[in-house]
């Protein structure tokens, strides 16, 4: 009986140690769960930030949390005011709303454009929860103003409560065919000459690995049909004029004191050009994407939707 009791005490000690480690790790990581968060208040917003919203996956706040993918949100409210002034928005709150509704609109320098739309799957925060998070974000370097936040409620899309309705192409398409066209280098325009998927292709444009998990069909359709509508940060076209009057449009590969390297489209082939500072007369970013804008003429409807379906399957 004594040996059994010793075994019980030992077991309880080990289990107790496990529980202690869990509590310690919770304090260390800053994640305290998101249970029971209701209503629009900074308290509810804080719970959602560290719980359901999964905001802490990418953002830390001061020394709470350890994520570094997105900017640390300490002092966000005051920073947002400055950003709003710089971008011509009415208030810091509007800047925060815009950043949540359309995460690609303001990407902080030094960070990638990776933030998902939190009202879309798989996070799917409902409107009330997003409003709650906004009130919480206001407390980071400012004062919460619930009435002001509520005024933005119509700007925030409502998440579907029951299930996700996936996009279905208007005509029947073959996903495999879409994949073949994407990588087919016998065509006049080949997607994989500029985009990479799972390591295949060239890295001239944005890497499209896993694009289906983070972008909507609407975004992809727009990006193919109107490439200049939204240009991913870091892939803007650069206009360069040399002293002898030659003009070039291309992607900026690198730039330092000694040279500027542009990737330039030469009859469908991407070629690197090196320019030295003393031969450059003018250089500026363009609002036009280097991606061909006439893809709708080069693809049949079936091929077009095949590519879109293939991209959406990349999750």
């Amino acid at each position: 009986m004594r040996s059994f009791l010793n075994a019980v005490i030992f077991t309880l000690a080990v289990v107790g140690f496990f529980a202690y480690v869990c509590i310690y790790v919770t304090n260390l990581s800053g994640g305290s769960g998101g249970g029971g968060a209701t209503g629009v208040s900074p308290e509810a917003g804080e719970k959602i930030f560290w719980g359901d919203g999964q905001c802490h996956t990418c953002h830390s706040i001061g020394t709470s949390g350890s994520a570094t993918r997105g900017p640390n949100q300490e002092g966000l409210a005051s920073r947002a005011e400055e950003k709003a002034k710089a971008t011509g928005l009415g208030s810091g709150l509007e800047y925060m709303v815009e950043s949540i509704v359309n995460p690609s609109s303001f990407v902080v320098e030094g960070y990638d454009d990776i933030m998902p739309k939190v009202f879309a799957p798989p996070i799917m925060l409902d409107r009330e929860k997003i409003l709650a998070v906004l009130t919480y974000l206001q407390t980071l370097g400012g004062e919460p103003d619930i009435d002001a936040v509520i005024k933005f409620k119509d700007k925030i899309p409502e998440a579907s409560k029951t299930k996700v309705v996936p996009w279905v192409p208007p005509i029947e398409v073959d996903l495999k065919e879409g994949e073949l066209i994407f990588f087919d280098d016998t065509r006049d325009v080949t997607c994989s000459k500029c985009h990479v998927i799972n390591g295949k292709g060239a890295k001239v444009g944005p890497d499209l690995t896993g694009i289906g998990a983070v972008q909507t069909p609407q975004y992809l359709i727009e990006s193919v049909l109107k490439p200049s509508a939204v240009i991913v940060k870091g892939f803007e076209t650069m206009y360069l004029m040399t002293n002898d009057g030659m003009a070039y449009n291309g992607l900026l590969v690198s730039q330092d004191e000694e040279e500027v390297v542009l990737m330039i489209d030469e009859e469908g082939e991407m070629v690197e050009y090196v320019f030295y500072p003393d031969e450059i007369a003018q250089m500026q970013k363009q609002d036009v994407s280097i991606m061909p804008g006439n893809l709708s003429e080069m693809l049949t409807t079936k091929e077009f939707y095949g590519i879109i379906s293939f991209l959406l399957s990349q999750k």
Partner: protein
Amino acid sequence: MSKLIPFINFTSKKLQLRFVFTLFLVIFLIALATGAGMAQEGAESAKTTEAAETTAEGKTAAAEPEPEPYEVVDYRNFFGIDGRLIVWIISELHLMFAAFVLAVPIFVVIIEMIGVKSGDIRFDNLAREFTKLLSAAFATTASLGGLLAFALYGLYPAFMRYMTDVFHPYMFIYALCFFGEVFCLYGYYYSWDLLSRTPKGKWFHISIGVMLNLFGTALMMLANSWATFMMAPGGINMETGTVTSLYHAFYNFLWMPVNIHRIIANVAFGGFVVGAYAAVKFMGSRTDEERAHYDWMGYIGNFIGLGALIPLPFAGYYLGREIYMASPVMGNIMMGGAFSWTFIVQAILIGMLFIGGNYYLWNGMSRIKGAERYTPYIKYINIVIFFCFAVWLTPHNLPLSGEERALIGEQYHPFSKFFGVMAAKNAVVNLLILSTFFSFLLYRRANKGETKPFSSHGSAARITLIITAGLTVMYLAWYALGLRGLEMEENILRYVSPLVTCLVIQIISIVIAILLTFANKGKIAQSFLFVVTTVMAVIYFWYYGFVVMEKANLVLRFLSVTQVSIVISCLIVNTVIDVFLFKDAKEVGGIQWGKIPHRSQYALLLLCVAIVTLMGLMGFIRSGLRMNWHIYGYMQDTSAGAFTPSIAYMGWTVSLIVILFLALVAFVFWLAGLADKKKKHA
């Protein structure tokens, strides 16, 4: 004057225990009655309100009130307790018992076979004793399974309605397999004496055991498909939920990785649980004979547990990779998001398992004469294991305060940042496995003296070694050819070439090791293979992992598999060499079963508690990755409890589950032992 003997002895410990137990029962029953009463009260008050409303309406309208429409409920709670918590506890308990019930028959049949082949009755007795525990635990598993089904259908009716719609054909197959398992288990247990009389009968008995395993594995795989369907649904229209392919719903993307991981984990789980049973029995033994028996039983349990623990990280890595492939969002949540810190807790538990396992082996060497020759090396293995543990434990980014950041001058710690990344962790996991394997080899040769030349074992040994090495080399060559055939950009592909070179070096090393063994230089062959493997898989790949992470991250996945392949090939070839190296070798001294230090039994207990806790933790992670989805991407969990709890909350819940499981196991094993006590007293 005669001493007065009180009618009731209030100082009796037994009586005090009975009081405590009765008090506990009373409190429990009162709590239950109060809960039920409250629920009933709620229902009654609702009825009263309804009645009042009806009367009021009755005054204004003479017509009969409309009958209340039938309301379809999506979620319920359990007497005010969140349904998710109840399902969590019951399913985890069911899973733990099921793991034990599925794992034990695997090694019971193997032990019985060893007994038949070797003619050693001890193996047969041991297999039988394990089966006795099995039959006692089986009924509890089935009861918990029934309870889980009721809980799911009662608390999550809408979700279960859909799952039943999709999987109902397989549910009937599940029930049939369950019958098969019941008949095989009880047939196996109760026919032991009857079928042991003749060799043919014995093999027939073993065949029943094999059937038992087949039914058990089929049951596990059926249930796994439902769980993995929830994580990575396939074969359904994601808009309407219509089943487009039942086969793909069943054979979904994560089904096979989870099957493989669970089978191996179950074996480790079963081994460590019987090890702990033996430890408790050993500590309570009164005779040398009993001590010797339970010492041996504990040794076998630990051997099985450690044997399965070695390939487990590889299976876990494969599963993790497949989760990433199924959904990068889910993968990100797992390793970089809400669940990333739970892997620090996991590292602590796995560290406990490796340290506990090695500690037990080293203690075990004290009961072996001749083991003192290897004692000086133990401290070095200790240092290596603790170093590996420390690196594995290091998080990728330690949260730093503003002051610390200013002091360091960068976001990451200048040294720890190198230990927190995957390249370092992969390297130390492989080193940990190699060290544990080395520790086990020392244990095996502890009482062995001069070895017999390999050539004396005849052609059977040579053929076995050639087949083993041949298969290993074929696998390595197949993987190397696969790497060469990868379709990638040239600037990424060049980072794959060193991996191919390492695989080729390993193939050559295996061939050299085999030739050295044939030349009666088995020990040199083992050392040679060990050194080459450690240099490549640990030292070189640690460095090269950083290069790949920096220059061609995509190659990291191939690097990890190459690393694992090289280590496994070393373990397989060295094991076979070791078997023949020490076959019929001279013994320096015998093993004195029962003469192991008492403290070693706590190591067995630690192993059991750690693996049970680990199973609880990993169950939480696997299930929690779906976040607020019943079926990821199709059906959302809209219940009030649909949130990811904090790690602390998880810690408390898993602790409760572990205590409940161990208490139930102890109770069930105690019941199983009652029959033996009766026999002894008779």
